[in-house]
Structures are given as structure tokens and as C-alpha cells.
């Protein structure tokens, strides 16, 4: 039970970290390259 919970949790946080990094990249590109 503990292992399954840990795996679920790490998938959840990894997925949201990737989303956050992608969002950060898009925001950086908008700020720098499109002078937003």
C-alpha cells in the first residue's frame, strides 16, 4: 500500500513539475522574444 501510494504521488508531482517547467519556458519566451 505504501509503495503504491509513493508511486502515485511521484507520478503526480513529476507530471505537474513538467507542466510547471513548460509553462515557465513559454512565459520566458513570451517575455524575452515577444517583448510581452
Amino acid at each position, binding site marked *: 500500500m505504501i509503495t503504491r*501510494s509513493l508511486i502515485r504521488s511521484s507520478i503526480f508531482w513529476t507530471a505537474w513539475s513538467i507542466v510547471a517547467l513548460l509553462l515557465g519556458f513559454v*512565459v520566458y519566451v513570451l517575455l524575452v522574444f515577444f517583448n510581452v
Partner: protein
Amino acid sequence: MIELTDHRDAPSRRWPYVLLMLIVVGFVLPAAIAFSTPWPAVLFIRPLVNEKLPVTPRISTAMQSVTISAPMRFPVDQAPPGSLVFITPKATPSRSRPVILWIHGGGFVAGSADQLIGYLSVLASNGFTIANLEYSLAPENRYPVPIRQAVTALTVIREHAQDYGGDPNRLIIAGDSAGAQMTSQLAAMITNDELARKVGIPIQFSAQSLRGVMLNCGAYDMYTAPGTGFPAIDTLHWAYIGQRNYLRTHAADEMSTAKHATSAFPPTYINAGDGDPFESQAYELEAILRRQGVTVTSRYWTWSGRKLPHLYHYDVETEPGQLVLKDMIDFVRGRTS
């Protein structure tokens, strides 16, 4: 029983932390980076700009008819060494050839002289000696290092052009994008002592020997250039000048050729594509030069609907690229005959 569940990971309690991460990593961090250093953008831009131009049939033929020298490194006062590569037609000339000093673009942070060897071979094969300048890039080397290197290159050309069949008294300076800005500033400094004094770089090159300048797709007014919407323009100028609020620096004023061109500015060829954000910069400088009585030849594509992008002229296999090439050959011949 020992309770092992981390309550922060309970599904219902995760969302505030997710939201916090999205705000910090997705908005605060990129904004903090974007406002504190130009480096990430520079590292992103370099590989995009540093691609070599494709060797098309026309370029391949031209490269067989020219000699490309080894880079000639030269020391520069208060700056790293610069270097020049001379490209000369193999055919022996009946008289010494006009010399074109070419300054490459790349937003001051990227690009290299080597990228343009093919295109410049096509230009040189029409009977010109081309001195292709390699200068130091920003942010490692800031303004006015490349200008110092370009000014010293003029002295090197004066002393060595004849070794490559060139006549240093019939010089044209040309460039593209950031190189066009540098070209225009160099011409303004040669013909405007007050600007040369402001920049603090003495120029020992006769204005009479500078027969013309060719400006391709450049920015000539640092105060109006940000309004063009050119990608990353503020970051590029920040990297080059060294200050985020670069418009408050003396460098921004000195770089604005539109403010310093006098009636002594050399005859000018200027071009920009209709899809290039810098098209308005070309129009602005042309209007100022014409008001000063300077002879200007220009090539625009406004209302053509072609949407020719920044540096479109480097594709010599297209009609617009061939027209610009012909324009430049005619301009050099007309100014140096």
C-alpha cells in the same frame, strides 16, 4: 500502528501546493530570470543563428572561382584581437579591385564571418576584394569592443588590401542586421568627428576613401527599434550594451546612426524585406539621409505581399535575393569606378 501517510500528499491537500509550484516555476522564476540576465536567451539564440547558409549551385560555382585566405588576426587596443578573411577572385585583375569590408549580423551575440563565406564568394566573384570581419560577441564582450575591432580592421585593410589585389582607397563597408548597425555607426564615426570623439575611438581613415555603405536589414535608431517588435531586441541590446535599461546609456545614443548622420555620410544602399520588423528602421534612416542630401539607393518590398523575412537576401536562388545581389554589385561598381 505507525501512521506513514504524509498528509500533504493526501489528494485533497495537493492542489494548493500544485498551484504554488505553477506560480513560482511557471511565472515568478522565468520573470526573475528574464529581468536579471540576458544569458539564457543568448544561449537559446546562438544555435538558431549559427547555422551555416546552404551551399546552393550558384554559391558552389562562385566558391570555385575565388581564393579564401586564412584568417588574418590583428591586435586591437583595449579589446581582444579581431580577424579578417580576404575573399578574392582567382582571375588576375587589370587594375586593383574595390574593397568591401563586410560585417556579419547575429544580434551582437551570435553569428560568425565563416557563415557568410559562400554568399560573399558570390559577391567577390564579380570582381571585388572582400574583407570579412570576425568580431567578438556579446555578452562576453560588450560595446564598443566590436566597434574597436572594426575600426582597427580599417587600418589593416589600408595596410594589406593591396596584398589581395584590393585598392583601400575605394572602400565600401557593408553588413547585415547587427552588422548593418555597426556599418552605419562606423560610417557615421568616419564622417562625424564629434561622434568619433563621443565614442572615444580615434579613426585614422580618410573619409574620401570610404565610397559608400550597404545596409541590409539593420536597426539604426535604438530609441525607435524596440517599437518594431523584433524578437528579443531588448535582450540583445542589453547583452551588447551591458545594461537592462540600455536606452539611458550613452551607447544607445552613439549606436543611433539616425541621430548622428551628417551631410558627409557616404552614399548608401539600404534594403529590407516587407516581412522584416526592421523595415521601418530602413525607411527612417533613408528619410534622414535624404534630408541631409546624402545619395540613397534603396530596395523595399512594401505592399508586394511577399512577406520577405529578415535577411531574405541571403537566399541567392530566389528572385529577391538575386535582385539585391545585383543592386549591391551595381552600387559597388557605380561608387568605385
